[in-house]
C-alpha cells in the first residue's frame, strides 16, 4: 500500500490504532471534534475514520476560515474596490470564493484590479509601487495569519503609508468552540485542538473548555500518527472521567504560544462585539477589527461599506454539519446541487471545508484500512 508506506512509523500507527480500539468502550459513543481545516483535510486524505471503531465519530468543526466567511463580506470587499477604484488584494484561497455577483477572479475578468498576494507584505509592496492607487488587503484567517496582518499594520503606521488599508475578516477560534458548546442540539465529548493555530495562541486559551465545560482537548499534529495518538489521549481522559488540556504536538507547539505574535495582535486588533459565521450565525466576540489608532488603515472606516447580507439557501444544512448533528452526506443538497464545482453551502467552498473534503476523499476511503486491518 503506497499510501501507508509513506507514513512515518507505520508500526507505531498500527499500535496506536490498536490502542484506540482497546480504549474505546463498546457501550459508549464518542463524538470528537477537530476545529482545524488542516486536520479535516488530513483525516479524509488518510482515511482515518475508516480505521476507527464505529462508535468513534469525528466531527469536523468550523476550522476553515474561507468556509465560515459570510458571502456578504466578499461582496462588501468587492464593492469597495468597484466604487472607489481600489486595488483588491487577497490570498489565493479567496480568489474563487463566490460572492453574490461572482468571485474576486470573476470580477478581475470584468476589469477590476484584483491581485493575488501570498503575504500581506506584498500588498504593501503593491501600495508603494502604485502610489497613485489605493491598495486594500482583504485579510482573512485565524491566528495563523492574523499576527502577520498586525505586524504589517504596525509598520504601515510607523511609515505613515497613506494609500493602503485592510478589510479585516480575521476570526478567532475559541468563541466558535464556545458557540458550538452552547448550542442545544449538539453533544461533543472532546476536541482535537488545532495544530498551527496553537503555535501562536499556545494551549492556555483552551483551559476553560476543560475547566468550565468539562471537555478534554488535545492539541494535535497533522500526521496519521499524531491524530491517532491524540485520539488515544482523549479516550484515556474520557475513560478516567478527566477533562484536561494536553499537548500532543509539543515538538512544535509551545504551551505559551508565540508571545511576540500575540503582542502584535493585541496592539493592533480588538474584538468585535459580534461577527457572523457562515453556517453558525452571529457569534459574540468572535472576530477581530482594527483598534481606533489604526482607523486610517481600516477599510471599513475609510470607505462606506454597504453591509451586504446574503442568506445561505435554507436547504443547505451547514450549521447542522458543523455542529455534528448531521454528517456531510446527510445534507439534502450534498453531491446533488452542492458540489465543490458549484458550492451552495459554506462547507463546500474550500477544499478544507468538511463537505468538500468528504466529497473529494470519500473514494479514497480504506487507504489505511487495507494495511492496518479493518476494525469494528
Amino acid at each position, binding site marked *: 500500500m503506497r499510501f501507508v508506506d509513506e507514513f512515518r512509523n507505520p508500526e507505531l500507527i498500527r499500535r496506536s490504532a490498536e490502542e484506540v480500539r482497546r480504549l474505546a468502550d463498546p457501550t459508549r459513543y464518542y463524538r470528537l471534534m477537530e476545529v482545524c481545516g488542516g486536520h479535516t*483535510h488530513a483525516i479524509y486524505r488518510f482515511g482515518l475514520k475508516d480505521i476507527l471503531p464505529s462508535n468513534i465519530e469525528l466531527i469536523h468543526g468550523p476550522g476553515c476560515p474561507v468556509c465560515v466567511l459570510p458571502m456578504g463580506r466578499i461582496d462588501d470587499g468587492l464593492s469597495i474596490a468597484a466604487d472607489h477604484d481600489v486595488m483588491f488584494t487577497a490570498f489565493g484561497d479567496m480568489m474563487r470564493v463566490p460572492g453574490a455577483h461572482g468571485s474576486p477572479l470573476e470580477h478581475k475578468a470584468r476589469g477590476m484590479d484584483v491581485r493575488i498576494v*501570498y*503575504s500581506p507584505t506584498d500588498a504593501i509592496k503593491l501600495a508603494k509601487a502604485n502610489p497613485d492607487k489605493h491598495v486594500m488587503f482583504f485579510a482573512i484567517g485565524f491566528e495563523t495569519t492574523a499576527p502577520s496582518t498586525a505586524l504589517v499594520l504596525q509598520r504601515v503606521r510607523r511609515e505613515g503609508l497613506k494609500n493602503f488599508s485592510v478589510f479585516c475578516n480575521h476570526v478567532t477560534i475559541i468563541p466558535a468552540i464556545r458557540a458550538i458548546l452552547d448550542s442545544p442540539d449538539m453533544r461533543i465529548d472532546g476536541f482535537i485542538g488545532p495544530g498551527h493555530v496553537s503555535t501562536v495562541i499556545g494551549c492556555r486559551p483552551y483551559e476553560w473548555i476543560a475547566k468550565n465545560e468539562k471537555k478534554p482537548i488535545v492539541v494535535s499534529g497533522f500526521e496519521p500518527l499524531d491524530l491517532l495518538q491524540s485520539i488515544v489521549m482523549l479516550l484515556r481522559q474520557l475513560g478516567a472521567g478527566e477533562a484536561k488540556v494536553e499537548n500532543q504536538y509539543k515538538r512544535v507547539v509551545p504551551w505559551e504560544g508565540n508571545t511576540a505574535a500575540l503582542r502584535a495582535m493585541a496592539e493592533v486588533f480588538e474584538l468585535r462585539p459580534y461577527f457572523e459565521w457562515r453556517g453558525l450565525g452571529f457569534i459574540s466576540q468572535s472576530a477581530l477589527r482594527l483598534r481606533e489608532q489604526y482607523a486610517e488603515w481600516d477599510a471599513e472606516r475609510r470607505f462606506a461599506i454597504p453591509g451586504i447580507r446574503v442568506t445561505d439557501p435554507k436547504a443547505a444544512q451547514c450549521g447542522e454539519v458543523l455542529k455534528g448533528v448531521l454528517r456531510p452526506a446527510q445534507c439534502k443538497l450534498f453531491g446533488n446541487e452542492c458540489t465543490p464545482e458549484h458550492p451552495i453551502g459554506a462547507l463546500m467552498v474550500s477544499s*478544507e471545508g468538511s463537505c468538500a473534503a468528504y466529497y473529494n476523499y470519500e473514494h479514497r476511503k480504506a487507504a489505511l484500512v487495507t494495511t492496518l486491518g479493518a476494525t469494528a
Partner: protein
Amino acid sequence: MCLAIPGKIVELVPASESLAVVDVVGVRRRVDLGLLENDKPGVGDWVLIHVGFAMSKISEQDAMDQMKTLAMLGETDAALQEVRGYGLEDEKEIRSEERDKARAAGA
C-alpha cells in the same frame, strides 16, 4: 495559509529590519522574522512559515516531517506556489545579489 511550510534560513538580509532568505526544497525566497523577536532564529535554523512570516522555530527533523506531511496531503505544489509567490519580484533580486556575490568572491 493554514498549513505551515517548513524552510531553512540560509541568509539574514543585511540592512533590513527582519528579513531572511529561506530555502524550501530548493526554492529560495525572503521571509519575515518579525514575529520571532523573542527568539530570533539564525542562519541554519529551521522555521515554520505562514503567509511569508516565520511563526515558529523547529528542529530539522520536524521540518522534514512537516514537508512529508504536506506531500502526503497533496499540498506540496500549493506550498511551493505560495513560497514562489512571496515577495513578488524578489526572485530576480535574490538571483542578482547571488551573482554579485559570486563575482565579488571571484574577483
